[in-house]
């Protein structure tokens, strides 16, 4: 009887030990996964990459995209590198993506983490170029404009705009990025001559805002004018305004001359 009790207690203790070991292991494991997968919004992915969560789930970490890239742009993240382990990414300041028209990286991907729906490389959206106007040479009044000239989608993704200067009547030419055309290839970031690039590629979700549905931009063509915004019915015609006797440019200072 006593013996049976001992073995039974042994068994229960073993069971409890096993269960807690398993639970500890599973919690640690889940924690590690959350750390790795969820907390890293900075990775720039190859062309055609799905949205970050889907990409993280789909990529099998095979590196075929890395080897297929003729420019050595892509790297597989090593363990402990701050980017989800084993997934491909690139650092434009080192090597940008040169936008191969035949998209070898995407074609090499066996899983579809780089989606074959991308037909035209110019439709890829790896990130968005952002200009630090406090450190951009053009915004200081120099004629740099290198990013604009290097941009493979010059005139669409980066345009040059005029901007008034403080001390001179000559305007400055400053670069402006347009998100509807910028692929995030990073050729501008690579080319920028400042010590630290004044133009950088960042993932869209880190830089792009969102207006929200409730703003109605009545002056754009797509926005429907709703009942609330319809102008009131025209009031009865007012008496015709008195026609000034003088041209409007003639102000009171000139009166009596």
């Amino acid at each position, binding site marked *: 009887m006593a013996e049976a009790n001992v073995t039974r207690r042994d068994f229960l203790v073993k069971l409890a030990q096993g269960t807690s070991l*398993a639970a500890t*292991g*599973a919690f640690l*494991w*889940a924690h*590690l*996964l*959350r750390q*790795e*997968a969820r907390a890293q919004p900075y990775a720039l992915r190859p062309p055609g990459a799905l949205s970050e*969560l*889907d990409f*993280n*789930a*789909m990529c*099998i*970490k*095979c*590196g*075929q995209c*890395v*080897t*297929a890239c003729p420019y050595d742009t892509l*790297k*597989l*993240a*090593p*363990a*402990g*590198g701050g980017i*989800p*382990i*084993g997934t491909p990414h690139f650092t434009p300041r080192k090597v940008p993506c040169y936008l191969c028209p035949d998209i070898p990286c995407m074609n*090499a*991907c*066996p*899983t*579809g983490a780089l989606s*074959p729906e991308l037909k035209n490389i110019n439709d890829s959206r790896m990130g968005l170029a952002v200009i630090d106007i406090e450190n951009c040479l053009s915004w200081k009044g120099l004629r740099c404009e290198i990013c604009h000239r290097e941009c493979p989608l010059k005139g669409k993704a980066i345009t040059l705009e005029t901007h008034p200067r403080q001390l001179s009547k000559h305007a400055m030419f400053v670069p402006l990025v347009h998100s509807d055309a910028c692929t995030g290839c990073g050729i501008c970031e690579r080319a920028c001559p400042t010590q630290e690039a004044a133009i950088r590629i960042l993932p869209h979700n880190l830089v792009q805002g969102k207006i929200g549905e409730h703003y109605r931009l009545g002056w754009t063509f797509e926005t429907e004018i709703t009942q609330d915004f319809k102008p009131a019915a025209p009031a009865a015609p007012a008496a015709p305004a008195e026609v000034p006797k003088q041209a409007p440019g003639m102000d009171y200072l000139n009166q009596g001359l």
Partner: protein
Amino acid sequence: MTSAANPSPRGLGVRLWSWRYFMLRRLSQFGILLLFFGTAHWGWQVAKDVPLLIGNLSASEFVGLFPMADPFATLQIFVTGHLLQQKVIIGALIVLAFYALVGGRVYCAWVCPVNLVTDLAGWLRQRFGIPAPTYLGRNTRYFVLAASLVLSALMGVAAFEWVSPIGMMQREIIFGFGLGFQALLAIFLFDLLILKHGWCGHLCPLGAFWSVVGRRTAQVRVRFDKTTCTHCGDCAKVCPEPQVLNLKRLEEVGYVYSGECSNCGRCTPVCPEGSLRFDLRPLIRRHNIEAGKGHEQ
């Protein structure tokens, strides 16, 4: 490794011969890594723009024709609820079919790079007689296997692939180094000081997966000849999974039937009677019947 366990003075040729599977396994393990590395770094190709073996052990393509993929990794991605492209699924089926035929854990002994580390730890442990202070059931690995799939489904990423020391080791050898060696060092020390054959024999879910695959279908197995076996137990001393060499069961079945056997070939050269041999499963029964007859005569 085997000669350390058997110190009788023998000629070099005989010694090398008894190491034949060990050398072939290392050749296979390093050779596969070399093919991947050469393709990634030196641009090895069979024709213009047709890389020799592109990718790594998770997924690859051989001479531009045969896709291959790790079926366990593919399964984990599948349970996250994502629709994979055909290429990786075909690749996973090809690899699955191959190991189902030659024996699932052939992957462990002949391909997996972590096996180099755990073999070294196991050898050092034996060499220096390091005692085994901990106990853990060998079926723990099947729990880890199940947990990989459950966690993949819950967390939405391939749970084992994201922490796998196997993945880290092979990626970092093929594509460049990071902190993955820390995980390997941990496994090495764990195997050396804490639990004998700890990682590969108790915990690794990929090893568990391959144990399940090919449990019934494997065609290459170690044949057991009960008429010559003297029950000396030398085989179980060198086997990293000694539970598969349960002599009583072997006498009934006639070969090492367990899926946990990795066809590493440690046991066959150490058996002094030559009772253990690699053989094709369909031929084993006939061989054993003939051996039985020969013995009776």
